[in-house]
């Protein structure tokens, strides 16, 4: 195993641990940031589906070990969301700009939450337990806040990577 792969695995695991523990303990509304989703969406820029899905599987596995959700549901929701966003990014938007990524963040947040709720409901139905699929104003408000924070996180990551790594510049369309 080469150092690059090891570095990737370490980074994925660290991000997953931060999501599970640090971010979940932050004050409301900052505890609704989904750093894993934002990072995976950022990786769409690199057009390496194998790497993207590897990151997804590893982070999903770590999240599932410590998550209160039934094993696998979070990974499946993330997998569906990221694949949909991959299709949108390369077949519909086809523009590797910050604005495309921000549109994807909005869509991905809503899709991820909706998919997770549906999977949880299906899981509870098949296991005989009750589950409240509550999609009221509060639910939409929480998604809006989560999306706004993820958009901010994406902007920060985008400009940080642009600043740190000049080789990325051709990939990132910026106004001069």
């Amino acid at each position, binding site marked *: 195993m080469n150092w690059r792969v090891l570095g990737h695995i370490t980074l994925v695991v660290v991000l997953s641990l931060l999501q599970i*523990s640090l971010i979940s303990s*932050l004050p409301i509304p900052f505890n609704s940031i989904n750093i894993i989703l934002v990072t995976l969406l950022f990786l769409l820029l690199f057009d390496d589906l194998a790497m993207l899905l590897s990151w997804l599987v590893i982070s999903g596995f770590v999240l599932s070990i*410590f998550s209160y959700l039934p*094993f696998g549901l979070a990974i499946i929701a993330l997998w569906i969301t990221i694949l949909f966003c991959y299709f949108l990014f390369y077949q519909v938007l086809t523009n590797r700009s910050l604005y495309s990524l921000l549109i994807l963040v909005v869509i991905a947040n809503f899709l991820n939450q909706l998919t997770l709720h549906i999977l949880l409901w299906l899981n509870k139905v098949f296991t005989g337990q009750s589950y409240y699929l509550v999609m009221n104003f509060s639910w939409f408000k929480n998604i809006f806040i989560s999306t706004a924070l993820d958009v901010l996180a994406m902007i920060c990551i985008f400009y940080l990577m642009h600043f740190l790594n000049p080789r990325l510049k051709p990939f990132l369309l910026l106004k001069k």
Partner: protein
Amino acid sequence: MIKHSTKPIVVSGGVLLLLIFLHQIGALNSIETVLARVLKPVLSLSYGAGTNIRNLWSAQTDRRDWQAEAGNLGEKVNSLTVENANLKQLEEENLVLRKQLAFVNSKKKKFVVANILASGDANLVNQQVVLDKGRRAGLFPGLAVLSDSGQVVGKILTVDEETARICLINQSDCQFAASMQGGNKTSGVVKGDLGLTIKMELIPQTEDIKIGEIVVTSGLEKNILRGQVLGQVAEVNKENNALWQVAKIESLIDLSSLSIVSIILP
């Protein structure tokens, strides 16, 4: 249209399904246990760091309310001091009686102290909390979880070898048989309401519930000791044409600020 290989999608889908299948049959238990044991200290540290940030944030935003609350608490401390003195007297008498009847000392119970590793998504109604102790520490489903001040904050739902998942008392799937402090029979059922409030249901119309009364566990449930504090009555809804009364219960602590909990083992 840009064409992309579907092989990574198929492979990743296959790996996901394999992981879920292996988890269900228990083949991944040893890997999950080792990973949990290795990563727990890191999780505990980062959750603690996040809690400190949250406390700092709360300190800044709640400063205005603290002065008023400090005044109220001062009066409460005075009355509780007197009550405490009376209770200590009763406790001493109780110990003497128990010795005389050859009872086992009820205060010497085995405790397990656990750190919170992760808590749930604010957007999910039935959110749970993950603790860093599990089956290996002697935990099992159905045990009550207490805060550092001794109030019941939740119940263990599921346990793994190294971790446990608990529901908080304000969650809908968390219920306790309860009674009023000083009462000797079950008065109702305390359960959470969509993660927002706690209510006590199935209270007989003949029960006289007063605002401010302390609600405790009734001892009806196996593995949960009698007399553990659940909260304080904040509101009573008593309608003459209803079969039962419903009371709104207020927790005496902030459930979102928990970082260390304890579990009494029977």
